[in-house]
Each structure stands twice: as structure tokens, then as C-alpha cells.
């Protein structure tokens, strides 16, 4: 939280002592920068078709080779990263916020509201995600927004349930009772006392969820249920490459490696954050 001066600096100092966490952070930063500056970094237009140069192995002109339509794979991977991170960012921030709100309502509100919301969460979670996605796509057609929507709807219950449990555990803590006895309103208790106490675990969870969401987008795009061609996505690069695997392995390699990197990077980073922010492990003396 920005309201706690020095926490960011302290977290970063602890992170530097953890080589895996640091590696994760480096990967995360590299992937983020590569996606943000995709248009500057990409050597070619990712949509530029040149069938004479199809399925080439890496050359100085095409570092990661070309696909079955002669498009530059490196450029497509860079732009695919943009799509992947956009989906992750939008889907996770929306579902996190909604989950936070609903979870706190369920955890702090009256019992009937809690029961109602929990039934809704469980109903949503009882669908296998891919089946749910297939149904939605069949209804409204594949697009980037559909992917984001599906991920949001299936992630809200996950966040909401965690927030609910944490809120329930906190609402009976003495310091919340003390705040009440001191005349604090419910809104104030939720904002100043419950939220900061559940923020750290939620942020860690969110960072660990990035690979899941990126993988989900890639999966749906691979199945042809996500981003529409010719827009590059890691999943569609994999799908294109898979059909021509016997001719050239390069598109598959180029589409797979960033997925693996993102997964490792965010997982290492998230785990390291968890170790640092866990209050039980953070009992160093002295003012912070």
C-alpha cells in the first residue's frame, strides 16, 4: 500500500536477496517492456504476408523465422505478448475488484446475503472453465472481449471466496471490535482495517494468476475461440505452427517459449512476494 511509507523499498530490498524472485522480476519487467514497446521493437509488420518466404528457419532478417504465410514470427510474438498481457491486466484487475467488493459484502454483510452470494460463486465455479468458455463463444462468437469476459466471470468467484473467508476471519478480531467500540462506521472498518489486511495476499494471488490467465487466453486462441485471425496471439501462433510442425518447428518454439517464460517469471515473483509479505515471516525488529 502506498500509504505505508517505506514498504515498497523494504520489499524490494528483501527481493534482491532472493535470486529466484529477482529472476522472476527481471522476466516480468522484460516481458512487460517488450509488449509495451512491441511496435518499436518488432522488425516487421506482424501482419505482413510474404508467401515466397514461408516457413523459413531463423535468418538475420527473420530472427525467429517465418510462419506458413511468411509473416515474421518474432514480430508476431511481440505483438502476441501485448494481447496476452492486455487480457491478463484487464481480466485480473476487473475480477479482483469485483471479487473484492462481493467478497467483503458476503463476509461482512448479513447472513442471508452471504448465503446467496456463496451459492452464486459456487454455481459459477462448478462449470469447467473451458466448457463455460465454449458455451459463451458459441453464443456470442469469438473475440478478444469474449475471452476477457469469460476469464472475468470465472475468476470473480475465486477472488470473492478468498476475500470472504479473510473478511470473516478479520471481522471477529479484537481490533475490529475495538474500532467499532470507538465509533467507526462499517465503511470505515472495511476500508481502513479489513482491506489493508487482505491486500497483501490478494496481490500475491493476482500476480500468480497472470500465467493462468495468459495460458487461458493462449488456450482459447489455440482452439480458435479467442482472438480472431490475423491478430497475433501466442495461442494462434502455436495453432498455426502446429499444422506445419513437420515443415518447420520454429513457430511452435517461438510461441511456446514466451508462455513458459511468463509462467515462470510471474510464479517466481509471486512466490517471492508471498514470502516477503507474509506477516508471520516479517517479524524483523526496528522501525520500518
Amino acid at each position: 500500500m502506498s500509504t505505508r511509507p517505506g514498504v515498497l523499498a523494504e520489499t524490494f530490498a528483501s527481493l534482491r536477496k532472493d535470486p529466484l524472485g529477482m529472476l522472476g522480476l527481471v522476466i516480468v519487467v522484460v516481458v512487460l517492456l517488450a509488449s509495451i514497446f512491441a511496435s518499436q521493437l518488432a522488425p516487421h509488420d506482424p501482419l505482413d504476408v510474404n508467401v515466397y518466404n514461408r516457413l523459413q528457419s531463423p535468418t538475420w532478417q527473420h530472427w525467429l523465422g517465418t510462419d506458413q504465410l511468411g509473416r515474421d514470427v518474432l514480430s508476431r510474438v511481440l505483438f502476441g505478448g501485448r494481447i496476452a498481457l492486455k487480457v491478463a491486466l484487464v481480466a485480473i484487475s476487473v475480477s479482483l475488484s469485483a471479487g473484492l467488493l462481493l467478497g467483503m459484502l458476503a463476509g461482512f454483510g448479513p447472513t442471508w446475503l452471504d448465503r446467496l452470494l456463496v451459492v452464486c460463486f459456487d454455481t459459477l465455479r462448478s462449470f469447467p472453465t473451458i466448457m463455460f468458455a465454449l458455451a459463451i463463444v458459441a453464443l456470442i462468437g469469438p473475440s478478444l472481449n469474449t475471452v476477457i469476459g469469460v476469464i472475468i466471470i470465472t475468476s470473480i468467484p475465486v477472488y470473492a471466496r478468498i476475500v470472504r473467508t479473510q473478511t470473516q476471519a478479520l471481522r471477529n478480531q479484537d481490533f475490529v471490535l475495538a474500532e467499532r467500540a470507538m465509533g467507526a462506521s462499517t465503511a470505515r472498518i472495511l476500508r481502513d482495517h479489513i482491506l489493508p489486511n487482505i491486500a497483501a495476499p490478494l496481490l500475491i494471488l493476482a500476480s500468480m494468476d497472470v500465467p493462468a490467465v495468459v495460458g487461458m487466453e493462449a488456450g482459447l486462441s489455440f482452439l480458435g475461440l479467442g482472438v480472431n485471425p490475423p491478430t497475433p496471439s501466442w495461442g494462434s501462433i502455436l495453432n498455426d505452427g502446429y499444422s506445419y510442425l513437420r515443415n518447420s518447428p520454429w513457430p511452435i518454439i517461438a510461441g511456446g517459449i514466451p508462455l513458459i517464460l511468463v509462467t515462470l517469471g510471474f510464479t517466481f515473483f509471486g512466490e517471492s512476494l508471498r514470502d516477503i509479505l507474509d506477516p508471520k515471516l516479517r517479524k524483523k525488529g526496528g522501525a520500518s
Partner: protein
Amino acid sequence: MTAPVLDIRDLSVSYDTDRGLLRALRNINIPISPGRIVGIVGESGCGKSTLISAIIRLLAPNAQIDGGSILFKENDLLALDPEAMRALRGVEISMVFQDPMTSLNPVMTIGRQMTDIQYRDNRSKAEKLARATRLLERVGIADPAEQLNRYPHHLSGGMRQRVAIAMALMTEPALLIADEPTTALDATLEVQIIHRLQQLQRDFGCAILFISHHLGVIAELCDEVVVMYAGEIVESGATRDVFLTPRHPYTRKLLECDPARIEKATRNLPVIAGKLPDLVDLPDGCVFRTRCDVSIELCASERPPLEGGDHCTACHVTGQ
């Protein structure tokens, strides 16, 4: 005598349980004069916590008030709307809790919690911090400005309880409710906190309602004492009178059980035989009858009234 700052009149509270109505408090009368320290003593389950919750109107959802009134500065707290009640809490009525390890927010610095609690005042942040520093100093915390930047887990239990007391006194309340504030602390700290509370009471002039099951602490701190048993008051009066000449058999036994009074080495600490009566299915007559060794026939049929002027007792045998 001046008008009491808090006047609990004929208060009865019960809980709606699966087994039926649990009558946790029955006809409680406690007047607290301004600037006095009143102790409530009794074993677990006698209704101490219910009484506090009723005063600050934070009773469990299944609790109901069956009758009586709680007059605070001549306004009935039980008749106030929730907003008006909330405005009183933390301003006119403050509270200190039992366990200082859990009564502070673990993710906020002491300074932030102490300034946050002043949100109702239109002061600058610097002024609020200065006030927090002054209060920490008054509760006996060394180097208060430094402590403001610390998190609760950096502080010891005694320090945290001092912080909690400082926070409760921040608005100079007319009434401070202390719910076993020293139970979680060790004996030396307990004495320190008690003396500090006495000092603060003299400085701030607030009345204190002090809940404890530690007789020594009550004797040391309180002007008046109320002995509760199974949801009723069995004896009340000036601390001196009650401790020197206890009248109710329960009070007598309670005093006999105080480990501080045991003179001979013994393997077995004295206990009061028997257990609390079932509050769902109350027996007729005196509630203490089944554990009492002086009970007479009348005790089984008729509930003894609490009478006796300044030193009241509810007992047919020893009351007169």
C-alpha cells in the same frame, strides 16, 4: 451525591439460543458517579461481557434487551438510534480490551492508528500526531515519537496495552470501560498498568467501569465494587466495605478462594463447589442456593432482594 454519569437501571438481557431463552442478565442496577472507578467482579459466565456489550450497544445478533434502561448523562442509550450511538462511542464512552495482542490493527503503524482514530476532528495531521505523542507520553511510553512509526508486532504486550489505553483516552471520554485490561499481562506489568490507570483517572477525571476476575486488582484500583453471580448482582458497595466485611456467601467464598489470601502451603487451591445454574432453566429462589452452605428454606422459594443502602446484599440469611 451528583447525578451518575452512567446509570444502569433494572437491565435485563437474554440470548435466544437453540435450547430456549438464556437469561444472561436480570434486573441489574449499577450507578456510576462521575470520576469514580467501579469494579465488576465475578466468574466466567456471570454476565460481565454481556453487560459491557449492552452498554456500548454491540450485543450479539441473537441478544435481546428484555427491560430496563442505561442512562448516560441522562439519555437512554438503549433508545438512541444507531448513528447517535456511534457518535458517542469513542468520544464520550471509550473502551480498552482484554488482549492487547489482538486489539491493534497489525498492518498499520501505531501513529497511523492513533491519527486515524481522530478522524472526527478537523485538525491538521501534524496536530493529530502531536496529540498522539502527548498521549503516549502520558501513558508512560518512553520515546513516544519513535514508537509512532512502529507496527504493533514491534511492541510488547504491556506497551500495546498502554497504546490501547492512550487511544481510548484520546477524546477525553466521560466513561472508560476496561474489559479485563490486565488479564493478559504478567503481574508486574499489571501493577504498572493499574497505577497508570489510577493516575490517568485523576488527570482526566473520567469514570471507569473496570471488569476483572482478579480480586487484588479490584481492591487496588476501584472505589466501588459490584459482585455478580449468574447474571445478577449479589453484593455491591464501597470496595473497602465489601472486601473487609463481605456479606453475601458468594462474596465470602470468592475471597476465600483468592490465592493471595492463602497462608498455609497447600496442594489444593480452595474452590467453590458446584457449578453455575442453568440460565435457560433458572431455579426458583436464590441463584446461589445450590452452592451455598448457609441457605435456609426461604432461599428455595423466594428470590432475595438486593437491599442495604450503601452496601447492598441479596441474601435472606446474611443480608439483614
